[in-house]
């Protein structure tokens, strides 16, 4: 063992490099073959007709559709509908995101491992098996619930809530709130797991109880990140709120659905312009607010 580390390294490198290169080549060929197979399988399954799309008739059809869109219909009642729809879309995304933040905030503290059954907070009592097991029950319940909320897509939630509370924007609010609640719950949970233990330790040293540690040591640390994630999801949600109307949950989507179904292409373009403006404004607003928060 009197070799210096650098000498050992030099001896090892050629062999290692050779081994790695062999493995790497194999892996990349495997990936390539798998990828090609995936593409061919998908190409056959998804009924792609590129020749039709780029044929004279196909291109003419799409061109005709695009020319039909112009000029946008800026007559007074269409504009009024568009403005009303935009405000409704904003309202759905706003209330939905707020509801989501509340759901996530209520559940996430139960769904993070380091707060509910292990880690710093439980150092003193970790040995008692049964109380640990008892604390794991809310953990799994909360985690499972968040996973479930997240797995069901917004559109399906919207269909379900339209069935339960009837047509209208409230179904959209509930759909967004419930699904985004699951998403934010996961994002918040990741923030909580990265929490800096030092402030918690020093609070513990002053004799603070768990609730005090939560409110003075943990929440102030994570709140800016929580808000930033909520704003980010709001950006996403305004896009979703714009299409929830397709299944009857209000907003611009409802107007767009009608316009496309009835071949009112000029109105459609007006609504599309409003979506574009709404989404762009929301992006800027959210970016500005996020800069202020962090």
């Amino acid at each position: 063992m009197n070799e210096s580390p650098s000498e050992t390294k030099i001896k090892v490198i050629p062999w290692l490099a050779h081994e790695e290169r062999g493995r790497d080549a194999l892996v990349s060929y495997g990936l390539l073959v798998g990828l090609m197979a995936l593409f061919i399988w998908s190409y056959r399954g998804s009924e792609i007709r590129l020749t039709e799309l780029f044929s004279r008739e196909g291109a003419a059809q799409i061109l005709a559709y695009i020319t039909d869109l112009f000029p946008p219909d800026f007559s007074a009642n269409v504009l009024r509908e568009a403005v009303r729809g935009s405000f409704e879309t904003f309202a759905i995304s706003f209330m939905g995101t707020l509801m989501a933040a509340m759901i996530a905030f209520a559940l996430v503290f139960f769904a993070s491992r380091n707060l509910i059954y292990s880690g710093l907070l439980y150092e003193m009592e970790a040995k008692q098996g049964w109380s640990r097991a008892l604390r794991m029950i809310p953990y799994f319940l909360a985690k499972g619930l968040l996973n479930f909320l997240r797995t069901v897509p917004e559109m399906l939630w919207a269909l379900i809530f339209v069935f339960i509370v009837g047509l209208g924007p409230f179904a959209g609010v509930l759909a967004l709130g419930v699904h985004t609640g699951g998403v934010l719950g996961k994002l918040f949970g990741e923030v909580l797991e990265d929490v800096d233990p030092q402030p918690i330790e020093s609070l513990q040293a002053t004799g603070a109880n768990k609730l005090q540690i939560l409110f003075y040591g943990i929440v102030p640390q994570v709140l800016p990140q929580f808000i930033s994630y909520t704003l980010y999801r709001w950006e996403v949600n305004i896009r979703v709120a714009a299409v929830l109307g397709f299944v009857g949950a209000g907003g611009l989507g409802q107007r767009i659905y009608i316009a496309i179904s009835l071949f009112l292409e000029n109105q459609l373009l007006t609504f599309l312009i409003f979506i574009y403006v709404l989404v762009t404004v929301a992006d800027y607003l959210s970016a500005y607010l996020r800069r202020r928060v962090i």
Partner: protein
Amino acid sequence: MKSPTLHSYNRAEKFAFPHLFTLLFLIAFIDSWRRAEVSPLLFFDAERRTSLWKFIAGMFPPDLSADFLGLMFRPAMETIQISVMGTLIAIIIGFPLGMLGTRTFSVSGILNEADTLGSPMRRLGGYFVYSCARGILSLFRSIPEFVWAFMFVRAVGLGPFSGVLAIGVAYGGMLGKVYSEIFEGVNERSLEAIQSTGANRLQIFFYGWLPQVLPNFISYTLYRWECSVRASAVLGLVGAGGLGQQIEISMRMFNFHEILTILGILFIMVATVDYVSAKVRALL
């Protein structure tokens, strides 16, 4: 070098911001409450409670008959196929547009130095191409994939092909934007080093530029693919193929036990795709 006026302006802004924000937030809250017809009391009303109960009770037990599962196999596979092809088209759209929408690629930077130094016209042309690419990308991604899907259903007919095109266009816009952000972050020094060996533009691109950005590209594209599986599962609601079509039928027929089965299938699919994508990313 802070001027005193600027300083006081910042302080005024800092002071006003929380109050202004609270005020706007309250206005938005009250107005949104009214516009979105929020009515939590609805859940205490007898009729709503019965339909809620009907839905929950109707989901159990899930329909696990071989018949139904066999019927679901094809749409489930179709969903994955739509997402794969859609992501491929998104790459085909997003990569060139993202490249042209990169300032250091179209307007300034090492690739254009020699041309643009003496000629403002050339620079203006570059800037025009750059703005056009940016505009197209932002148009593509601002219109939600659902709207694209419905428009394509109208233009090319019902079926998975409309779903592929919708994902391709909407995700092409998102990919293009992120690709151009990755491009902007390229380390210029290694490009300069390659240039100093006498490499031409194509060589700089292939040996200096591409190797730097490729890992980020692939990883972000995989992430988008995961998202597109979720998206293509519901695009069928407007007739663009995949599981969504079946979701709509089951909802319309009030067959909630089928909904639970479909959710189970969706969960397995999404988990599998996430797993595969994580494995591939780990190999990079």
